[in-house]
């Protein structure tokens, strides 16, 4: 027998001590809300980062400084030089399509009164085609620019906008960290590429960046595009060989460089995400547990308070199962109601954080809404079952005598 009357009875039961019921509901709202917002934030971050990896391309490799462990402390070893790029290309012509050596620094880009702080990226002519990144006006850095260390620059879309507004920038003189450069082109609007907002950078020839601007010997990284994604394993092998020979690393000694594939980067990220996930979900789980304890607490109090009522119900023909059902329904109403509000609260919280910080990207998978509600009912039933059993086990005569 499960009719409407049961639900009404349960709601009346909860109304009897409204404040207490509301407090228990708030406990569930916080618990479920924490779960939903944790999931939304984590899922959002994951999506965002994975998108970034996808933009790198499955046929690409990234070579960065090697790692050395010394007394438990890991430090990086700088070893990559512009010559390595030439060698990788020449010694693996069958496997390697392009190599893009890069040096990245920061600086101020200035045009008369206007100035912008941004990234200064030193690259060769391969950078643009490798990233399918095109110029909007003018031209890109050429092989001759790199060879001659010319003082030319290609501005990111955002930088050009900030400095020149509606004026045509090509041919104008800008100052980068105090040095004079001629603008030869402006890149198309792109947004983020490999975790950087490339619209906010100025591109200059690699040799200019390293020798004339920053005075550095070693590269920030090398980006390699293999002939196909299938060629990646062979490519790794070949590059490894080339670099070990060129860096004169004896056999048995560790590499002084690290090569990442898109897959490896994803895995590394997944590891980090997992740690964050464990922390975030633990907090959410604890909140939910506290909510469950809240329900159990009010149900226990409620059973004690209503001992006589239970006696009366038994006396007029309620079976023990009917009493069990009544209290379980009350617990479920709190948890389901709290769960529904919790989903809304969690979603709103995540979105608020997203808006507020402008860094956190959120995504609430529809499945989590269903899962949260199921979880809420589960919490209600689990935390309500013990008080309900206590109620159902009461001896009718004792219950009727209870003061």
């Amino acid at each position, binding site marked *: 027998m499960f009719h409407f009357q049961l639900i009404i009875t349960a709601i009346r039961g909860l109304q009897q001590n409204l404040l207490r019921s509301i407090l228990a509901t708030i406990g569930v709202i916080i618990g479920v809300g924490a779960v939903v917002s944790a999931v939304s934030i984590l899922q959002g971050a994951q999506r965002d980062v994975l998108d970034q990896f996808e933009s790198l391309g499955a046929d690409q490799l990234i070579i960065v400084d090697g790692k050395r462990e010394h007394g438990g402390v890991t430090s990086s070893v700088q070893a990559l030089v512009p010559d390595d790029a030439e060698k990788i290309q020449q010694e693996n012509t069958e496997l390697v399509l392009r190599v893009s050596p890069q040096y990245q620094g920061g600086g101020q880009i200035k045009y008369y009164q206007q100035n912008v702080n941004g990234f200064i990226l030193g690259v060769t002519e391969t950078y643009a085609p490798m990233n399918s990144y095109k110029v909007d006006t003018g031209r890109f850095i050429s092989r001759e620019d790199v060879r001659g260390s010319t003082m030319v620059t290609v501005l990111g879309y955002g930088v050009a906008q900030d400095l020149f507004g509606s004026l045509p920038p090509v041919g104008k003189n800008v100052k980068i960290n105090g040095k004079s450069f001629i603008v030869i082109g402006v890149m198309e609007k792109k947004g983020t590429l490999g975790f950087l907002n490339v619209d906010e950078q100025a591109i200059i020839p690699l040799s200019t960046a390293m020798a004339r601007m920053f005075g550095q010997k070693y590269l920030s990284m090398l980006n390699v595009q293999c002939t196909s994604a299938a060629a990646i394993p062979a490519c790794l092998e070949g590059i490894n060989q080339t670099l070990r020979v060129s860096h004169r690393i004896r056999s048995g000694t560790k590499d002084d460089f690290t090569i990442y594939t898109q897959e490896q980067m994803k895995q590394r990220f997944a590891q980090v995400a997992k740690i964050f996930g464990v922390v975030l979900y633990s907090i959410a789980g604890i909140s939910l547990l506290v909510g469950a304890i809240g329900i159990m607490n009010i149900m226990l109090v409620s059973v004690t308070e209503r001992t006589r009522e239970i006696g009366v119900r038994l006396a007029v023909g309620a079976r023990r199962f*009917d009493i069990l059902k009544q209290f379980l329904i009350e617990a479920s109403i709190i948890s389901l109601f709290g769960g529904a509000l919790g989903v809304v609260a969690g979603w709103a919280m995540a979105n608020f954080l997203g808006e507020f910080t402008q860094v956190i990207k959120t995504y609430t998978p529809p499945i989590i809404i269903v899962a949260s509600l199921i979880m809420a009912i589960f919490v209600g039933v689990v935390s309500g079952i013990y008080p309900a059993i206590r109620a159902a086990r009461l001896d009718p005569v004792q219950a009727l005598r209870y003061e």
Partner: protein
Amino acid sequence: MIRASQLSKHYHMGESVVRALDCVDLHIPHGQFVSIIGSSGSGKSTMMHIMGCLDRPTSGTVEIHGQTINSMSEKRMALLRNNEIGFVFQTFNLISRTSALDNVLVPLMYTRRSFSSKPAIEALDRVGLSKRAKHKPSEMSGGECQRVAIARAIVNKPKLLLADEPTGNLDTHTGTQIMNIVHELHEDGMTVVLVTHEMDIAVQAERMIEMKDGKIVADTAVDAARRAEILKLNQDAHQSLFRKKSLHPPSSKPLPPQMEAR
């Protein structure tokens, strides 16, 4: 019809044993109105609880409407309480947060029939409280509360009404009102067992049983002529209160000689 044989209920309190009921034999035929009297702790309520299928005896057998409750499952006992037995308590035992009507609806929630509020409205009408259906127990007098409790007891049209000191918490006049309802129900064919401490209520039954230390010590039939006289008196007292608004409680009338003898 109730038949108890060698009925005992013992409570173990540490070393000692409390014999709340001690080898009681009792037969109540269908439609009889029985009152039980006896000092406090003599086992009256225990007897009622066992007859009402709320409790099981330690030994002996009880048969209610042809069904032996000793071997009955809890579920069947619940069904019996729901369908065939109506219980009225001294302290009304209404659920305070809900209305009179909702209280009367409670037994209907546990029937096997489909739910309808019609019987509850009829039962309230029967005890003259259809106008109070929406009132909560805290908004009603003690007499009205007990009438709601009676409505709850009879809503499933049981054959047996068990009333444990129904007038114990009420003044004499209100008690008379309640007794008039009980008489009506009895006249309609219900078996009534009523526990009371008041002699002038006990003699309104057809048969009086006195208990002491868990045993039946007296079992007498009330003289039909005297009973009719008392009932008439009750009715008159009731009407005089209503019509003339002059207090003239029935207990101030001279008691029948049979009762004075006690």
